[in-house]
């Protein structure tokens, strides 16, 4: 493991910002810590970087215990939310800074700064001051500065937060490409689940100072381990029902078959909006319900519908649109929706 965080607890007064965090990141892996603001993800990142000393627990980088080591001894590159570029130094001087601190020879510094500038495609900007660059360019300088000294770990603290959507998307890809090329073990922090799904090898979802679940993006999406993960990651219909003898009674849908291992009692079922079908194909599905459209949002390749089912619950459905197909049902239309049993995921109760 390139990074191993074990049992980290950090309290601020009576509040536990981190309540026992364990996390392992393999070499070359891109791991995203995803969580709402206040979930403790920035505190965790600062603990890994060495700006916070944990009250309990251990931080290992490359197998070495660095729990109490000062930041400069950890060999960790970090990109701050606002980039933290040194405003009085040129771009080249900013990038040279970590090399100078490591007392590299002058020629080596010059060469590596040039390489780093080329890497982020800013060869022509070496002599500019940070404030003479656009937000995206500044972000790339911060990245170049964080990787130029070959750190054991790259930490990115919501680095795209201040950028507009388009720039953000191109930078997401660029960072990902860079990370793959350099085979850099990377911890990335975001509260944007879409961003997390696009970029990560694995995602750790945090809430209230704890890691709720760590897994591959697809797994997390399809098989969330907790109700919070199910709700936070993507859009979801969480349906409450009662399990009994390998099936569950759902209001509106009737009986839904469940894995035989499911014990009897109340259950929460996750049904992603795209698992709900409408129209003719519904006839073939085992679980069906009738309902009324509350509203329809047109999204280009798909449409999002809110439906009130007979028997009470409101569900969200996302249906694909083809140019030749008829328009989606509109507000007030009566529809029949259905899903196949294998699209249902039982959310474990904690």
């Amino acid at each position, binding site marked *: 493991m390139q990074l191993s965080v074990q049992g980290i607890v950090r309290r601020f007064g009576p509040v536990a910002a981190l309540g026992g965090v364990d996390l392992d990141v393999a070499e070359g892996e891109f791991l995203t810590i995803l969580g709402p603001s206040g979930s403790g993800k920035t505190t965790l990142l600062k603990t890994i*970087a*060495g*700006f916070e000393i944990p009250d309990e627990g251990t931080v290992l980088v490359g197998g070495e215990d660095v729990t109490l080591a*000062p*930041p*400069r001894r*950890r*060999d*960790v*590159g*970090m990109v*701050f*939310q*606002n980039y*933290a570029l*040194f*405003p*009085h*130094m040129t771009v080249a001087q900013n990038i040279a*800074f*970590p090399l100078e*601190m*490591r007392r590299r020879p002058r020629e080596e510094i010059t060469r590596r700064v040039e390489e780093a500038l080329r890497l982020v495609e800013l060869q022509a900007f070496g002599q500019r*001051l940070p*404030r003479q660059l656009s937000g995206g360019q500044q972000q790339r300088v911060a990245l170049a*500065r*964080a990787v130029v*000294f070959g750190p054991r770990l790259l930490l990115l603290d919501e680095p795209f937060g201040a950028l507009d959507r388009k720039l953000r998307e191109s930078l997401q890809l660029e960072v990902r490409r860079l990370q793959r090329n350099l085979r850099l073990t990377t911890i990335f922090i975001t509260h944007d689940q879409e961003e997390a799904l696009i970029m990560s090898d694995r995602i750790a979802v945090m809430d209230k100072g704890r890691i709720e679940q760590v897994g591959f993006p697809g797994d997390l999406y399809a098989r969330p381990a907790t109700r919070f993960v199910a709700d936070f990651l993507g859009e979801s219909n969480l349906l409450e029902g009662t399990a009994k003898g390998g099936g569950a009674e759902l209001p509106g849908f009737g009986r839904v078959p469940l894995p035989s291992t499911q014990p009897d009692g109340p259950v929460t079922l996750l049904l992603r909006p795209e698992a709900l079908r409408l129209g003719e194909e519904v006839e073939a599905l085992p679980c069906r319900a009738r309902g009324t459209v509350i509203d329809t949002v047109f999204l280009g390749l798909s449409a999002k519908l809110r439906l009130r089912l007979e028997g009470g619950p409101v569900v969200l459905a996302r249906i694909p649109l083809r140019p030749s197909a008829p328009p989606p049902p509109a507000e007030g239309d009566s529809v029949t929706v259905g899903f196949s049993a294998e699209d249902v995921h039982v959310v474990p109760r904690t």
Partner: protein
Amino acid sequence: MSSPGHNREVIARRRERGLLLLAVPALLLLGAIFAWPVLRLLSMSVEGGTLAHFEKAALDGLYVSVLLDSMKIALMVMGICLVLAYPVALWLSRAGRVGLALGMFALLLPFWTSVLVRTYAWLVLLGRNGVINRTLRDWGWIEAPLPLLHNTAGVLIGMVHVLLPYMVLPIYASLLRIDPDLPRAAEGLGAPAWRSFLRITLPLSLPGVSAGCALVFVLSLGFFITPALLGGGHVVMVSMLIEQQVREFLDWPFAAALSTLLLLATLAIYALIGRLTRGARLATQ
């Protein structure tokens, strides 16, 4: 014809004019209490269309050497203030609420006492038989009293005491403006605390340093009560000579000529300080 761009410009200009209007009372006040007297002073120094007063002030070695001495004292006060003030400002910028309140109180205390009281307090402390010398002698650390008073050292101590806040506050303000992530980033990139300070914090606080230096330097040049009392007559400031010309000899034109020279010298130093810290100020704007 009015294009949208033109309209925007008109509106912007109107808003600017409105803001300027708000500044008018302050500008008038400045004009009345600052610009006008300075102009009067300048015109008085060439009263009767003669440069004789300047000739006397500039060519007589006496006044030039007093002027140079005054600037030397002012520079020394500035330097000592800087060395003492920076750590205080640094500490204040990182202190908690209680520390900040106490620190500010201690710092601003000299403002609440009159110059004379303050100066006499130093006489009591620094004299041959003053508190400091007596204590050191009682402890057997010294045999003869240290010459702390009635010399340049006494003047420097007294002036630094009064002027220290003028150095601390601008530096404190510019330290507060530094993003705390910057020194953090430097440390994360491998800098020990002292190198992070030298490379990041110090250069970024230069605007405050420059403002503080300019303030202390200019104010130092105007001091005459403190140097007269604590210097024991061994330190002569040009402001003392100007005051003498005005009060004792009613020679206003000559006093005006001396003041003008002082003003020019001050502006020159001021420009120099500005030039030395220009890069830092530009970069941190």
